[in-house]
């Protein structure tokens, strides 16, 4: 293949620009149609609980100046939050959730839909996210889970407090990300089309024009002879000469 020059890429891209644009439009349109009409949308709803170790009431924790709370208590609560996050991932809580939801969902379905995580390493908030194709169901499950957790945690860890801090009041669309997928598909279509065009161009390697010939070879071009049929077609295209017979 020899040295590949950037100019060669640009030349090929410009020469075959219409193919690349068509590929971009086709791929982007196809991805858009798939996202809008084929894929099932998935919504996510979030709720949260706040935990502490019981040394300070929740009201004090939320309303008091933090200087009034001992650092050791905060540290203990942070460790507790970490532990509670792990507890909320255990099978027991999900079995209880199945019962609480009147067996509308299986254990595996809820295990796959619900995710529990700490908001941050320095936070006492534990977030619960639920993904569902129905936004209302996502909210219902998220609220049910945190309510269940607020009751389950004190039973599991005595003297601990878990309070529902945020209820799920809305659900946002998380899948499919139509805009991103459409743009990415268009871009990939453009790139793939370019690669194919480039490979075909390299393989064909024909003389493409008189300028192309002269630029490549150090011999004089004595003349160029147009194609007979192309002349006839070109003549017919021009206005006023369609009646001329050659």
């Amino acid at each position, binding site marked *: 293949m020899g040295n590949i020059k950037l100019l060669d890429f640009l030349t090929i891209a410009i020469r075959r620009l219409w193919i690349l644009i068509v590929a971009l439009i086709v791929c982007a349109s196809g991805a858009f149609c798939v996202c809008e009409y084929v894929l099932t949308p998935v919504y996510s709803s979030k709720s949260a609980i706040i935990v502490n170790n019981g040394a300070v009431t929740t009201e004090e924790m939320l309303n008091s100046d933090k200087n009034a709370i001992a650092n050791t208590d905060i540290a203990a609560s942070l460790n507790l939050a970490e532990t509670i996050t792990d507890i909320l991932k255990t099978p027991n809580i999900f079995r209880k959730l199945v019962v609480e939801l009147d067996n509308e969902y299986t254990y595996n379905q809820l295990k796959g839909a619900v995710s529990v995580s700490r908001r941050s390493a320095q936070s006492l908030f534990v977030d619960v996210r639920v993904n569902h194709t129905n936004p209302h169901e996502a909210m219902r499950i998220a609220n049910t889970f945190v309510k269940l957790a607020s009751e389950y945690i004190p039973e599991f860890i005595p003297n601990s407090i878990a309070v529902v801090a945020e209820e799920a009041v809305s659900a946002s669309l998380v899948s499919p990300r139509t805009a991103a997928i459409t743009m990415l598909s268009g871009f990939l279509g453009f790139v793939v089309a370019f690669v194919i065009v480039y490979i075909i161009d390299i393989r064909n390697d024909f*003389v493409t024009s008189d300028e192309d010939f002269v630029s490549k070879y150090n011999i004089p071009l*004595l003349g160029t002879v147009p194609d007979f049929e192309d*002349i006839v077609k070109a003549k017919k295209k021009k206005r006023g000469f369609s009646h001329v017979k050659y």
Partner: protein
Amino acid sequence: MSNTKKPQAEANVIEKEATLNIHEKKVPFAVAEAYKNIRANIMFLFASSETKILTITSPVAGEGKSTTAINAAVAFSQLGEKTLILDADMRKPTVHKKLGIKNEVGLSNILAGFIEVKDCTNHVYENLDVITAGRTPPNPAELLGSERFKELLDELAKEYKYILIDTPPVNIVLDALVVSKNTSGIVLVVRDKFTQNEAIRYALSTIEFADANVLGAIMNGANPESKTKYNKRYGYGRYSRYSYRYSRYGYGFIGNNKDTKQ
């Protein structure tokens, strides 16, 4: 076909196999002008030489070298200069087909010593003669490299101002290189969007290795609407309109008046 006298052998016409050349009315003005341009450029190459003998070849088959040789020869003959087309492609001759003449005797017979030149020279148009390839011999390259071929060219050079020799593709057989030893040089014919660059490079390297002289190249099948600087010189649309007007007065349109010199 011209009705001018034929002092040499009869030229039997096979009309159904003949193809258009720039002597015919039907050929577009742009094509005829292209060959005139080629003629002018070749003439510039040989400003001082007496007889110009050209080897016409191409990298591979199908680029139109025989058609190019014929039309370029017609263009030269229209200057009033005696011109000869010599079909040296004895393996797959096509010149006789394109001109619609028979190929019972020709170059191979001359080189084998079976016939004289005057007995197989076909007079096709005014100032234009053709020696076809003849029957395919078992040893074309040897015949073309023989002393007899050199003597033949010397003999023909006394009578003709321009001799265009159609040869086989240089990438396939080396006949063109053998012929070029006794000619002014090689004209390479290529075709737009048909000839591969690899084939051209191979042809040029083969010619260079044989220490032959490349006079230049001719590109066939160019896009008439191409906006390259080489095509802009023509302005095909503009000049063809003038040609259409002038032809009504009998001016300048090749084929409209066979006796008109260009």
